[in-house]
């Protein structure tokens, strides 16, 4: 490529150093649940139930739940946490499907959520067989990621995807619900430094992104510029 070339210059690929499989930001000592005495009773009870009353599996079959759990583990991996500290996600998706909980809309080319999940899990397994010859749960993490990337790009292999638009399922059902559950959990709030419930106390430190006295300051754990 010379400077006289009229062809557009290829984007210079800036190879960022690989990000580690652990957080690169931390709010040391921040535990949003330690603030619960400052919350109103309705909110406190709601969050308490969310943390402690994880619903049993009622909707999916054992095979489906294994696939769903494997998918969820790749969407929001929690391999940096001991098992007992991980945010439960699959049980809440099962609960939504079982109770037919929806958000007030359905895209015209998608079936009802619970049907879309069943088809989606079936499609993910089919794509796993097409691409790697094994069930999704039997793949390596890299292989699982390759399957999910194919789904997110919209044209994964397998006959089920002819009945379910893959990209729309992935964005508007799978990613939307998984992130809704994860970022509703106090463990995720600690991770991202979100102050959480704030009534009746309110927030006082409104300027310069300052923390409240009871919030923590951010610490960067990696060397990469943010």
């Amino acid at each position: 490529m010379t400077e006289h070339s009229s062809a557009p210059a290829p984007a210079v690929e800036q190879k960022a150093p690989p990000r580690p499989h652990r957080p690169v930001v931390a709010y040391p000592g921040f535990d949003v649940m330690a603030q619960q005495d400052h919350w109103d009773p309705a909110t406190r009870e709601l969050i308490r139930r969310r943390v402690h009353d994880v619903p049993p599996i009622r909707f999916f079959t054992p095979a489906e739940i294994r696939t769903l759990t494997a998918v969820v583990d790749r969407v929001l991996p929690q391999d940096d946490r001991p098992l007992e500290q991980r945010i439960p996600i699959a049980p809440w998706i099962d609960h939504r499907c079982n109770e037919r909980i929806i958000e007030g809309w359905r895209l015209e080319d998608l079936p009802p959520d619970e049907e879309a999940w069943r088809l989606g899990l079936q499609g993910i397994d089919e794509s796993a067989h097409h691409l790697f010859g094994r069930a999704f749960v039997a793949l390596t993490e890299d292989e699982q990621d390759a399957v999910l990337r194919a789904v997110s790009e919209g044209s994964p292999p397998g006959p089920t995807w002819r009945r379910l638009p893959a990209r729309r399922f992935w964005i508007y059902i799978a990613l939307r619900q998984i992130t809704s559950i994860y970022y509703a959990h106090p463990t995720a709030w600690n991770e991202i430094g979100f102050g959480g419930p704030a009534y009746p106390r309110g927030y006082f430190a409104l300027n310069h992104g300052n923390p409240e006295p009871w919030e923590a300051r951010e610490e960067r754990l990696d060397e990469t510029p943010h």
Partner: protein
Amino acid sequence: MRLRINLSPDWVLDTEMREYPTAMPVDFCIVGTGAGGAVLAQRLARYGFSVVCLEAGTWMDSEDDMVSDESGARPLYWNDLRITGGGEPLLLGANNSGKTVGGGTVHYAAFCPRLHPSDFRVRTLDGVADDWPIQYEDLEPYYEQMEREYPVAGPALFPWGKPHSYPFAPLQSGTAGHVLIRGCLELGIPVVPGGPIAITSGTFGKRPHCIFRGFCLQGCKVGSKHSTLVSHIPDAIEHGVEVRAGCMACEIPIDRDGRVTGVRYYRTLDDGRYQEEMQRARFVVVAGYAIETPRLLLNSRSARFPNGLANSNGLVGKRLMAQAGQVVWGRFDRMIRQYKAPPACAETEEFYETDPRNDFVRGYSIQTVSPLPIAMAHLITEESPRFGWELRHLMEEYNHYAAIGVLGELLPDERNYVGLADERDQYGIPVAYVHFNLFENDRRLIRAAVQKAREILEAAGARETHYVDRYAHLVGTCRMGDDPQTSVVDQHCRSWEVPNLFICDGSVMVTQGSANPALTISAIAARTADFIREASLRHEL
């Protein structure tokens, strides 16, 4: 019946609410208690009419039912099924309508700008859409009333549209608001901090001032943010209105003369079952917003109106409008913590009007958005369907993001509409099908608006910017006009075809400019109430 509802920490609506028998006609049966229905009910009651409001949702007690939590706010939203499609399917639910006493105002951000004078004359000025049958001056006195009754905080001199002042001082902004202000000032763009926002910057009656908790879209437990639940409904009840909650309207029957006789609805009983009832009324007002209003009319079929009530010209449900609500966010080296302070913080209307230098007509506003974590995660995954540690790392930066939003005028088009789908909801009523597309002027406007928002964030120091398509504020499906052939209601929101039927919500808007619609809807309702009183006094109703 005895009501005992907390509206704020220091205010219990503890009163006897009048109840009307269903078989005796009341003067007005109003469907919906949002920005339109509640204001109309309150005024009609003060003018001496008997009024029953049917509300599909329930009472939300600010202490017991509202929470400081993003996903816990679900009960405020319209979660019943709707099918959404077209080239740009609108995401409904939380984003666009409420199902509770107070309607969508209970969870709106409370940005409350007025329309500009030019909005009422876009056909004359720009050769697009249609002129309204009324002018800015017709609504101006009602804007002033609503800004005192909501009330609205904002600058002493608001420079855009017809310049005017606000009765309450600007609200304090958080750091995310400062980002928009700083970016605009760096570029020499006029910007107003702290308004126009319907959040009290001082104590107002029994409503304390804002505590900057940031959960405006989840229902204000403080009672500081406006909703009709705290602004007009208590006064309506004091003046004899019955708000019948948990009652989902399903049909408006007519008699042999083609006049409506009341509203059929399903009342939710204590054991969860639905009971069909009918409230008889001399006049019916539909105020269910731009999806439920046309849905109710389309579901009210008769030999006289085989295509739905008041729909002989086929325009009920047509010309659905949304506003371009593209969310644009930047990542900053410095801390933002955008969850603090109300998401509605600051705005500029500098690009609101048609500018001949643009390749499109009409314009846009830019406002603060400041999503909480779940909403932020949705933006990030919709921009690009990322997952894995990449997604976790992006969300770790939550406190470094500031998100602002375009609020752009999209033009009405008959190819955007609300119809009926094959499916039925839990009551057995056919659900709405919502069809939405963008057209050329819309696309050009959005391109320019997103670019401007990016420039503002970059000028404020953003290291990188991103955006996602969003659409908000649904209006226009039962438009008002001067001609019965090309509109559904007249300038007083009265059906051309059914003399004792009114429609009084965002459905009647002809265009929607780049202003959030609540204040305009309430102003139209207050004007309609005055028309009804005057016509009634002249025995012309």
